[in-house]
């Protein structure tokens, strides 16, 4: 069975993640409940006419995918697989608002056309003239992991040599106001919002686009091997440790084999208990990392987590800003990622350094 390697990455996020080495310019912002993204210079990647028409999620997706492909020296992938929780919410809001405000009259199709969840995947296909397999997953916090799992299956089944995968989410003003009303986003003026010491429910939200080139071969740009990814819709709090152990066991690993655990802590005091179960018990002697204080929470923020873990394995170094505890290892060979949102859509992802072939 073919192995799956991460050979290129590209990330647009609330941090400078596209023209830096590895979070050396990261800024911790605990004052906002909506973290703005560090926008790239779009015109370096997209024609001015297109920039005007495209929503930011599409633009960010195009930039992040271009960066990942450039790094992996890939021109035309054998599949394009994306994940997005909320889809093109800006265009969706725009069309819906116009529809309601004008009582279904005087509408134009542009924002409707761009509101489709698979817009990013299809725009990339269009620009590359890529006629291959093209899927989009839209299942909240496992949208990206669904894409990862699909790609890994394709490579294992020998259906593809090189696959572009990515997680994209954008936030719109109106949706943000609804999320605040529903308590999904922490209250305005409730700051600062320290993530690990949070005493409140809800999260600090953001947006982003993170892409990876997955291939069946090791190259000069290889970051890591994707050993496994597992998705489970519900796990009870008292089951999460056993579930993690079971996942490791199915990969012939034990907790002591894990050199770092990357957790999706998002500052929601109600559901961070899942992560604490692991950090305070099974993985108490494992270097523990978090990242959503930098990326913010969004349905595909876990792709930022995988980006972080990939960088750690490649660079064999962990930026201080990611550390939950002070434990260190001389080598970072195997990293486990665990994520969930609101106690549902759990995912475990396992990556490792590359064994010489």
């Amino acid at each position, binding site marked *: 069975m073919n192995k799956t390697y991460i050979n290129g990455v590209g990330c647009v996020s609330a941090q400078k993640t596209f023209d830096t080495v590895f979070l050396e310019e990261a800024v911790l912002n605990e004052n906002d409940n909506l973290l703005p993204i560090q926008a790239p210079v779009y015109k370096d990647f997209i024609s001015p006419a297109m920039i005007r028409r495209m929503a930011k999620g599409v633009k960010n997706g195009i930039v992040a995918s271009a960066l990942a492909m450039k790094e992996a020296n890939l021109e035309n992938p054998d599949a394009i697989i994306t994940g997005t*929780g*909320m*889809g093109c919410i800006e265009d*969706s809001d725009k*069309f*819906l608002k116009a*529809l*309601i405000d004008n*009582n*279904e*009259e005087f*509408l*134009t*199709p542009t924002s*409707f*056309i*761009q*509101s*489709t*969840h*698979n*817009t990013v*995947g*299809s*725009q990339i*296909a*269009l620009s*590359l*003239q*890529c*006629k*291959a*397999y*093209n*899927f*989009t*997953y*839209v*299942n*909240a*916090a*496992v*949208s990206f992991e669904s894409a990862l799992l*699909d790609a890994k*299956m394709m490579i*294992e*089944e020998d259906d593809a040599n090189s696959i572009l995968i990515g997680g994209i989410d954008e936030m719109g003003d109106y949706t943000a106001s*609804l*999320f605040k*009303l*529903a308590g*999904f986003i922490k209250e305005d003026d409730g700051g600062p919002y320290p993530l690990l010491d949070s005493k409140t429910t809800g999260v600090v939200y953001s947006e982003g686009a993170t892409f990876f080139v997955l291939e069946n071969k090791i190259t000069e740009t290889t970051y890591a091997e994707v050993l496994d990814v597992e*998705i*489970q*819709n*519900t*796990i009870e709090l008292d089951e999460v440790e056993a579930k993690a152990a079971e996942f490791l066991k199915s990969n012939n690993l034990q907790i002591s084999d894990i050199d770092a655990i990357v957790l999706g802590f998002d500052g929601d005091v109600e559901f961070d208990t899942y992560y604490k179960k692991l950090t305070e018990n099974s993985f108490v002697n494992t270097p523990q990392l978090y990242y959503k204080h930098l990326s913010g929470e969004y*349905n595909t923020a876990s792709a930022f987590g995988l980006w972080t873990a990939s960088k750690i394995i490649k660079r064999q170094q962990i930026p201080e800003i990611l550390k939950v505890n002070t434990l260190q290892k001389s080598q970072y060979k195997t990293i486990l990622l665990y994520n969930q949102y609101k106690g*549902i*859509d759990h995912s475990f992802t396992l990556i490792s350094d590359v064994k010489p072939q």
Partner: protein
Amino acid sequence: MNKGVAITGMGIISAIGNSVEENYHALINGETAITTIENINTVHVNVMKVGEIKKTNEALAAELGLSPDNSFSRTAMIGTIAAKQAVKNAGITAINEYKTGLISASSVGGMDITEKHYYDYFNHPELVKYIGSHDGGDVAQKISEELGLKGFVTTISTACSSAANSIMLGARMIKSGKLDRVIVGGTDALAKFTINGFKTLMILSDTYNTPFDNNRKGLNLGEAAAFLVLESDEIVKKENKKVLARVSGFANANDAFHQTASSENGEGAFLAMEKAFKTSGLKPSDINYINVHGTATPNNDLSEGRAIIRVFGEGNIPDFSSTKPFTGHTLAAAAAIEAVYSVLAIQNNVVFPNLNFNTPMEEFNMIPQTELKHKNIEHVLSNSFGFGGNCSAVLFSKAHE
């Protein structure tokens, strides 16, 4: 030829019926259900016809026994009804007995509920529960909760080919051993959002849709949900399960031509069909019936027709029909309900009629089957295409012991 993945259960709710039996009855009796909109308050009520499930949200909630404080969108309710039927039909009593997954599909998720309350949330605290019901994942989560399913759950959204892709992923996960059993399909309720979206694209018919007719004027939207249960051969053998039919081939390709229009030569559709044959080991000449995408838009039928001619050869096209004159175009659910119809065609050895057809298209010689036809059906090809150039083809085959 590979054996394909066993289908052991089906469930469906559409404009033409609330069960597999009702849908079949309507299909063989030519009973269409394209009507005026009743459940949605839209200004376009007099200028379009739709395939609508004639049940109010209240009736659907009552049927499911939902508590008054539920936050189900219509999409989630019809999805749950179809998924429950499928699970029951497969004779499943302990849903988590095997490694079981759910792969749903939806184009706009809970948009039907969002558009209804969009500005009201701030003044009506009792509506706030619906804010989290908007995204596609919420629909799958609610269905899995209603089924009591704990396991792999995901949702695919590739516009109008979505459910074909959920069938495809499910079949792959059974074949690879990642799952023992998976419930695959899709659900989409009618929404003002899509009604108006398609209206701005000017591809809605103001009368009844007429697939593959030279004078076709566009599509009728519809709403529906359908799910199929796929199971591993190990379970089928161990539990002596009845196999309704098999998923014998599938492929997805991208037209890479335009965000909403299909290329003139149907490149994406051609590639999807060609690859589906390759994965199945079947040849075009093995196909007894094509359930075409056939939306009756000028663009789709021309593009799809040309792609079919490229795959089969103009003189060798098997009986084909679009069932969209019965149901309307049910978007992300279309490939799921048409998968049910493909299985019914195989089980009952019938070709369903392509209603409303009068005049052959001038571009090529392709005449759909316009009357119900009885003949042995071993293999069916089902096509589904969506925005973003997304093209899928799935092959279904008769289950032989």
